[in-house]
């Protein structure tokens, strides 16, 4: 609707007020009842989570859990931030993606749950995932699922044109040129300019370490470090040659592209296989999975794109019970197994990653291939030291803008990296950080 300025502002603020009141209402029954039973509020957008919550409450009769779907990703974060800002209304436990966890940590809105026993389960998780949620002995969340990266490809299209599955990025570039020359309607892959997650993942694999956070007030910004530049130059070349497409992903056009064989591969993460089988039904049986192409032959390096954690908020009046809920939901054998079989989340628990039930599962969509083999291996190949910035929303939104400009116009992806570096540095300084 086109409305007047004041109307708009008033409406926006009115919505904010109503939302704040509404979320305050959600947290309102956050108090002990006479019998000593505790009610916790849990925000998550994972579908059918109620079944795991029911298992939890069965095992913990004195804790009641109110499960709320406050929206996925950014939608939930907006509400969380409003509640944190208002000082009330936040849930006891909230789902937060890996890349956003440091942004909530820096504002002190998630609490260290190591005092409630979270440190004891450390050894059960893959190292990099644990590194993402902890700092020293402090534990700010428990990892839920992840997205180690790999390559999904159309075996029929590659076979038709006699193209081998690329194992290095050099082979990938050669294959991209050959395939597009053989069939101008087909691209070896699509490079989505709007997807900070996948671009960061690709840079991560190339050795980029964009941020180094020291304490709470100091951050080093290296968005355009050599790893990232190497990755950007690679894609710059393929894009300028016109042998890969640059459609924004998760749009109607992109889904059709996947369904109709416009893209012969999808550079994706471990949650990709199940997602794809739901969104490109027409191509069932034609896809296969392979490891991510490598920068040097013989290497085995992957990266991560996606995945969530469960964190306890500082507004929780029952941090002990809240931590118990988070730990149990992320660690109980029955509950966590259900995530892999019912919700198809890619696990971060070592025992699940090596469990035959999970790894050996055959997928008809992939011609009976045991795709989890590929991604379980990738999960072991993710660098532990990678860090996110404490203002990742800003970084992603700036990446969207700058990479978009680079795709649409004269600047290159390398230029875009420099621009993101500059803007992020300025932003960090304006937010009071010491920038190294």
């Amino acid at each position, binding site marked *: *609707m*086109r*409305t*007047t*300025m*004041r109307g*708009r*502002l*008033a409406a926006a*603020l*009115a919505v904010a*007020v109503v939302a704040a009141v509404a979320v305050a209402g959600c947290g309102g029954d956050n108090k002990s009842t006479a019998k000593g039973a505790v009610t916790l509020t849990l925000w998550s957008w994972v579908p059918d989570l109620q079944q795991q919550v029911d298992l939890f409450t069965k095992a913990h009769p004195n804790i009641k859990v109110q499960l709320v779907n406050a929206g996925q990703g*950014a939608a939930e974060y*907006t509400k969380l*931030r409003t509640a944190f800002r208002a000082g009330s209304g936040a849930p006891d436990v909230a789902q937060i993606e890996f890349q956003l966890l440091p942004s909530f940590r*820096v*504002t002190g809105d998630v609490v260290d749950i190591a005092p409630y026993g979270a440190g004891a389960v450390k050894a059960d998780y893959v190292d990099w995932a644990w590194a993402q949620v902890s700092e020293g002995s402090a534990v700010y969340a428990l990892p839920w699922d992840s997205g180690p990266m790999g390559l999904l490809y159309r075996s029929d299209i590659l076979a038709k044109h006699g193209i081998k599955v690329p194992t290095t990025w050099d082979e990938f570039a050669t294959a991209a040129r050959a395939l597009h020359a053989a069939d101008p309607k087909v691209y070896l892959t699509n490079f989505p*300019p*709007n997807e900070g997650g996948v671009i960061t993942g690709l840079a991560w694999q190339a050795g980029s370490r964009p941020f180094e956070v020291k304490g*709470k*007030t100091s951050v080093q910004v290296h968005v355009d470090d050599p790893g990232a530049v190497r990755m950007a130059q690679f894609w710059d070349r393929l894009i300028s040659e016109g042998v890969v497409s*640059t*459609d*924004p992903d*998760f*749009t*109607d*056009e992109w889904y*059709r*592209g996947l369904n*109709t064989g*416009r893209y012969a591969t999808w550079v994706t993460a471990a949650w990709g296989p199940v997602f794809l089988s739901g969104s490109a039904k027409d191509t069932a049986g034609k896809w296969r999975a392979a490891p991510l192409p490598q920068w040097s032959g013989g290497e085995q390096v992957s990266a991560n794109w996606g995945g969530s954690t469960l964190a306890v908020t500082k507004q929780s009046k029952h941090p002990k019970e809240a931590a118990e809920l988070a730990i149990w939901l992320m660690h109980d054998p029955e509950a966590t197994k259900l995530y892999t079989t019912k919700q198809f989340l890619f696990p971060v628990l070592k025992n699940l990653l090596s469990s035959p039930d999970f790894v050996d599962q055959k997928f008809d969509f992939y011609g009976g291939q045991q795709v989890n083999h590929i991604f379980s291996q990738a999960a072991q190949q993710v660098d532990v030291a990678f860090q996110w910035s*404490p*203002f990742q*929303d*800003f970084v*992603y*939104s700036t990446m*969207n*803008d700058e*990479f*978009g*400009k680079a*795709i*649409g*116009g004269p600047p290159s992806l390398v230029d875009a990296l420099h621009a993101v570096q500059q803007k992020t540095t300025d*932003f960090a300084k*304006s*937010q*009071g*950080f010491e920038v190294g």
Partner: protein
Amino acid sequence: MIQAVDAAVRDREARVARRPAGRGWAWRRRATPYLFIAPFLAVFAFFLLVPLGYALWLSLHADRLVGGEVFVGLDNATRALHDDAFWAGVRRMALFGVVQIPVMLGLALTFALLLDAGAVHLRRLFRLGFFLPYAVPSVVAALMWGYLYGETFGPIAQLADALGASAPRFLGPGLILFSIANIVTWEYVGYNMIIMYAALQAVPRELYEAAAIDGASGVQTALRVKIPLIAPALVLTTVFSIIGTLQLFNEPQIMTTIAPEVVGSSYTPNLYAYSLAFRNQQVDYSAAISFVLGAVVFVGSYLFMFLTRRRGRA
């Protein structure tokens, strides 16, 4: 019935006459209207003045991730005044408005005149047909047009492909502003048409008869009689359109997902304010941007009204 009412009135008059005209009564009489508008004032204050005040307060502060909230006075406003991204958005919308508003209002006026002239059969059907897009939520409209504009699988692209041609890149850098203008025009022609049509309906019919007797043709009547008489409605729709243009949000917001190469987070000033507040966590700076934008809208609208009023007097 009438007698009963008469009786009631007489009775009331009698009672009023009997009542002493004391100070309390006078005070009450003066207070009554305020009592009636009090609910509105309360809502107005609570949902408009208070939030506006809060936004103003925000705009004078900076909430830093390190160091927390500090008073910065007019720093944010000064920064907004020198913010290239913001002014690029304002200029883009000015260009958009200069082209789109005349086209949209011209179409609306033409349709309104045609409907009013009675030259059309099935007038109601056309009226409804023109107005219908306005009833489509703008988010839905933008999604729908986004599909039509699709560069690979959109129907226009498919048709061009079948004919061996290539469709224009509606979502490319060259055409995107036109494509958004087209969506907005499609949405609001009917709305503006209804306002103008209503104004035309209120014009006394004798004037047309007089014009006809003077030998004016249909076109002359439209240009010399009808349009001057509905000038206030034209000014009103133009002012609404200027405000709406500078506030453009939904359509470009949808376009950021399907055309991220062209439509960035600061494509329109409103989108910029939104991105700052809800994506970059710079609520305070966003508030400052909103106030500067408010000033731009006010100046733009006032300037237009000032110019038209002067011309009207001349």
